[in-house]
Each structure stands twice: as structure tokens, then as C-alpha cells.
């Protein structure tokens, strides 16, 4: 237990790294929070930690995962938010303040890391930033081995993201939990190569891909460590390609498994929690849990080995905290009542005994009205 780290964090008004506190104490605290939750309203931090330790809080914790949808509140253009950490913090905080929730996931787009590895980017006015796929860094297989590590200090987008984390951690303080983010090395490589060619390379040229994953991971380790040092108590690793909509299970384990394990270990060594986000079709919960042992599993679809939410809770409910699973399509076309009905159904199936945070399966669609985001938060209060 690093008392100095805990004290310094509290002095700054931010949540200390959870695992600087011995686990038995945390479990005891979670039990106490759960008990208190039966007779009074918990704070967002208490509620979320209680659920993370598989104790039922006063109600189910919730996050609308607004991300860049929150820019509608102030009218901030996409590019401004993508390139300026302070502007991003204003946007995300306004979303947290306006819509509510217990947890704020910081995620700008899936190309932050790739941009710093030299990928030419496009910053559309009406959508999140993306690679210019006409100019990929990795044009052919031989280019994988030309990839070199970069200095985090010179990585401008990652530095802006760290600034964004720092501002948010201080601004949110004890009002909620702030989650950091990193795209897994396979994801970063796909941004540098194009997904279609990357998938084929994973089968035809695995050695080259694995070597490049090592290079990417060496930088990502520094990146997630920096987020932890700033005060983010939990970091989501996005391992999108561990799903049937992407790589075969065994291939994913070879290409990305060992590297996300390194990232997970680096985060835990800093005393922070690991989350996994995967909005792919039929994600491989089993191997992602095997390699990363995350405290949180955020998914949009049932895993490949589960046929129902009930089975999901039975199989994985004790091993990790489940986050999700409101479908994106429902948020687009559903009425607030339909959204709340679906939230209620999921709460009934997944919230018992803690270990569940209500959330969309993926980030809230950026260009649709925020009405259904309010519906999600309201559903947690009403039915949670």
C-alpha cells in the first residue's frame, strides 16, 4: 500500500489508484458502500466501486458513453475536439454535467495512436477523425518491419489526449470515475494498413505483423502508464479484432494476446484497473479475459460462447464487471420509452449481485439527438 500515492491523490482531489489500497480493504469498503446503499443514496464513485466489487449498490451505475456526441451541447466542431485536449475536456465535461452518469469514458477516436505513428489523417467536420486510407503508412508487407518506436514526448495527439485526461480527472474529481483509453496494437496497425489488408496479413504474414505489434506495444505501454500517472484510475483497452467480425480466435491470440497482456500488466502495476472494450460481433470474451484479466468487460454484442444475457451473466458475471449492452441501432431509431424498456430488461438480467454498469454497447452515435442518452440515465435511476 503506497500511502503517499493515496494521500497525494486525495490532496489533489482525485481518486487514488485503486490497487494502491489492499484488495481486502477495497472489498470491505465495497460491502460497506453496498450496505449504506440500502438506506441512502451513494455517490457515483461509491456506486461504481460497489458494482465493480460485485456488491449491489443503491442502483445500477450508468454511463451514456456520450464521447463526441457531447459536442452538440456547445456546438464544438469535431476537428477542434480531436486536436485540442482542453477543448475535448470542455466537451466531455459538459456531457457529464448535462446528461449525467457515474462514469466518463474518455475516447476521441480510434486513430490517436496511429496519427503519431505517421498516419496521415482526415478531420471531417461532421464525423470523428480517421486515417486517410489513400496514404497508409504500411503500403506493403515489407513496410511492417520499417515501423519504429516513437517518443511519447513527441507524439502530439497522444500528448493532447494525456492533457485531456489530466484536465478531466481534476474537473470530475470525486463526482465520478474517469476512464482512460488505448486502442490495442492490432487496432493501431489496422489504422496504418487498412483493415482489409491487415486481416489478410494476419493470416499470410503473421511474423511481420507480430514484430510490428511489438513495436507499437512498446509505445502503448508508456502511453497507458502516463495515463495512470496522471490520475486516471481505470483504462479501457480496445481489442475490437477479438471477435468473429474480425480475426479467428487463435489468430487473435497470436497477433494481439501477448501484447495486450503487457498493457494490462503495465496498468495494474501502476495500481489502476483494466477495462476491455469490444463492440465487434460475437466477441471472444474467454480469451480476452484470459490475456488481460480485466475488471471490466464492455461489449455491444453477446460473446461467441453465450446465447443470451442470462448465460452471459452466468458465465462471466463473477469474473468481471459487465458494461453494456444497449444496441446502437435502438438509440438511433428507438423512442425514449423503448430505450428505457430495453435498459430495464438488461438491468433485470444483469444487475443482480453487482458486477454490471448500464451503458450503450458502443459510443453514443455522435450525430443523433441526446434524448436517448437522457433515457439511459433515467432508466438507471428508475429501474436500477
Amino acid at each position: 500500500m503506497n500511502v503517499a500515492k493515496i494521500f497525494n491523490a486525495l490532496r489533489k482531489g482525485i481518486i487514488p489508484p485503486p490497487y494502491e489500497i489492499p484488495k481486502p480493504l477495497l472489498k470491505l469498503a465495497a460491502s460497506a458502500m453496498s450496505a449504506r446503499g440500502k438506506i441512502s443514496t451513494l455517490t457515483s464513485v461509491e456506486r461504481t466501486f460497489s458494482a465493480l466489487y460485485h456488491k449491489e449498490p443503491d442502483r445500477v451505475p450508468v454511463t451514456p458513453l456520450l464521447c463526441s456526441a457531447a459536442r452538440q451541447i456547445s456546438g464544438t466542431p469535431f476537428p477542434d475536439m480531436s486536436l485540442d485536449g482542453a477543448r475535448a475536456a470542455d466537451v466531455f465535461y459538459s456531457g457529464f454535467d448535462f446528461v449525467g452518469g457515474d462514469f466518463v469514458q474518455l475516447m476521441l477516436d480510434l486513430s490517436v495512436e496511429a496519427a503519431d505513428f505517421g498516419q496521415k489523417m482526415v478531420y471531417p467536420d461532421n464525423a470523428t477523425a480517421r486515417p486517410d486510407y489513400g496514404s497508409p503508412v504500411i503500403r506493403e508487407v515489407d513496410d511492417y518491419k520499417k515501423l519504429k518506436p516513437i517518443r511519447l514526448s513527441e507524439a502530439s495527439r497522444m500528448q493532447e489526449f494525456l492533457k485531456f485526461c489530466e484536465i478531466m480527472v481534476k474537473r470530475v474529481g470525486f463526482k465520478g470515475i474517469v476512464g482512460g483509453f488505448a486502442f490495442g496494437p492490432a487496432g493501431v496497425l489496422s489504422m496504418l494498413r487498412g483493415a482489409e489488408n491487415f486481416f489478410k496479413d494476419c493470416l499470410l504474414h503473421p511474423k511481420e505483423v507480430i514484430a510490428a505489434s511489438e513495436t507499437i506495444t512498446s509505445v502503448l505501454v508508456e502511453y497507458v502508464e502516463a495515463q495512470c500517472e496522471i490520475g486516471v484510475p481505470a483504462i479501457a483497452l480496445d481489442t475490437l479484432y477479438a471477435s468473429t467480425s474480425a480475426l479467428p480466435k487463435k489468430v487473435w491470440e497470436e497477433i494481439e494476446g501477448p501484447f495486450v497482456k503487457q498493457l494490462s500488466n503495465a496498468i495494474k502495476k501502476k495500481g489502476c484497473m483494466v477495462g476491455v472494450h469490444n463492440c465487434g460481433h460475437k466477441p471472444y470474451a474467454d480469451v480476452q479475459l484470459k490475456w488481460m484479466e480485466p475488471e471490466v468487460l464492455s461489449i455491444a454484442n453477446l460473446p461467441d460462447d453465450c446465447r443470451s444475457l442470462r448465460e452471459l451473466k452466468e458465465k462471466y458475471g463473477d469474473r468481471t464487471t459487465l458494461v453494456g449492452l444497449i444496441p446502437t441501432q435502438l438509440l438511433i431509431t428507438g423512442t425514449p420509452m423503448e430505450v428505457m424498456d430495453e435498459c430495464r430488461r438488461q438491468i433485470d438480467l444483469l444487475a443482480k449481485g453487482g458486477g454490471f454498469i448500464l451503458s450503450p454497447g458502443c459510443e453514443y452515435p455522435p450525430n443523433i439527438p441526446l434524448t436517448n442518452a437522457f433515457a439511459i440515465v433515467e432508466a438507471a435511476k428508475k429501474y436500477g
Partner: protein
Amino acid sequence: MRIEDILLKIEKGVLEKNPESVQSALSLPEINELQADDLFQALAKGLETARRNLAADRFSIPEFLLAIDAFKTGVRLLNEMLPDFSRKKRESRIVIGVVEGDVHDLGKNIIASVLDASGYNVFDLGKEITCDMFLAGIKKHDASIAALSLMMSTSLENMKKIIQRIQRDCPGVKTLVGGAALNQQIAMAIGSDGYAESALTVMEEAERILQQS
């Protein structure tokens, strides 16, 4: 080599994701004894088996992509060998593209190949296709179906506008949509005639909407 064995080698070459094997089969001297359409059908059969493997989770997406590559290698070679080759096709013509604002074309590329292999005349417009580009493509190719793809929800409004323009300016042309951000309900809400969830259902859905009056 017997003719049946050559056709089987071509079919297997696609199914086993082996463009070299397809190439080697198409280089055999006995090829001249075969009808071009039979050669194409062998390629298509290999891809259809790969598609059914995908449906049954025996193939992954990357494996299916490699099977498509082997199929395309075969088609390219056929066209080179027989410039006048005109395989038996369905009457209907399909233009396909990723809508303006979106550049993710993996799904679109898969669908285009599946429709091509099943006999449709497919004209791939590419990605970030504007309304005017879709309309021009429909007119140029006398298309019966406009297949629109998107992955990101941020381009949904564009897709809706394109569908409305097609319905206004090209009545009789059917629209078919697909992509990660969509489902049946959204497809109906934006006015599309059809929705194809994936390569596994696109052929049946294309046939269904063509039969609509």
C-alpha cells in the same frame, strides 16, 4: 488432366484461398476444351462454398477475403485469356458504393464479390460516393439496384438523402442497404427497399426486392 478434375482444381483453389492453384489450373492446355462459362462457374462454386463456410462459422472474415482474392484472380485470368468472354449473367445490374462521409469498404467489397459470383452485373463505384455519383452510376449502367453501404452512423443522414433522390429521379430502381450501423428497422426508417445484414443474406434480399413491383 480430366476436364472434371480441372474444374474441381479451380473450385478448390478458390475454397482453399490459393490463387496460385487457380492460376495453375487455368494455365493447363486442356483449358481450351472447356467453355468459359463452365470455368467461371467453377470459380463461383468455390466462392459459394466459402460463403456457406462463413455462414457456418467454419471460415473467418479474413479467410473469406482470401477466397475472394483467389476468385478475383481467376476472373481476371479468364478475362485476359478470353477478352470476348461474356459469361451468362442475370439480367439485373447493380451499382454498389460506400456512401459519402464513410470510407470503410471492407463489407462493400465482400458484398460486391458475392453478388458478382452469383451472376449479377456489379459495378463498384467505390467509397465516399455522393448522391450525384450514385445517380450517374445508375444511369450509366442502367442499374436495377443501388446498393449502399456504410459503417458509421454519422453517414446515415447522407444515406437517407441518397435514397430519397434515387426514388425521386430513378423510380423503379430498388435500393438495398447494409453495414454495421444498420439494422432492418433503420433500413425501413430511411426508406430503403431492402436490407442485407451480411454476405450471408444479400443474394436472397437482392432477389426479393427485384420481385417487388
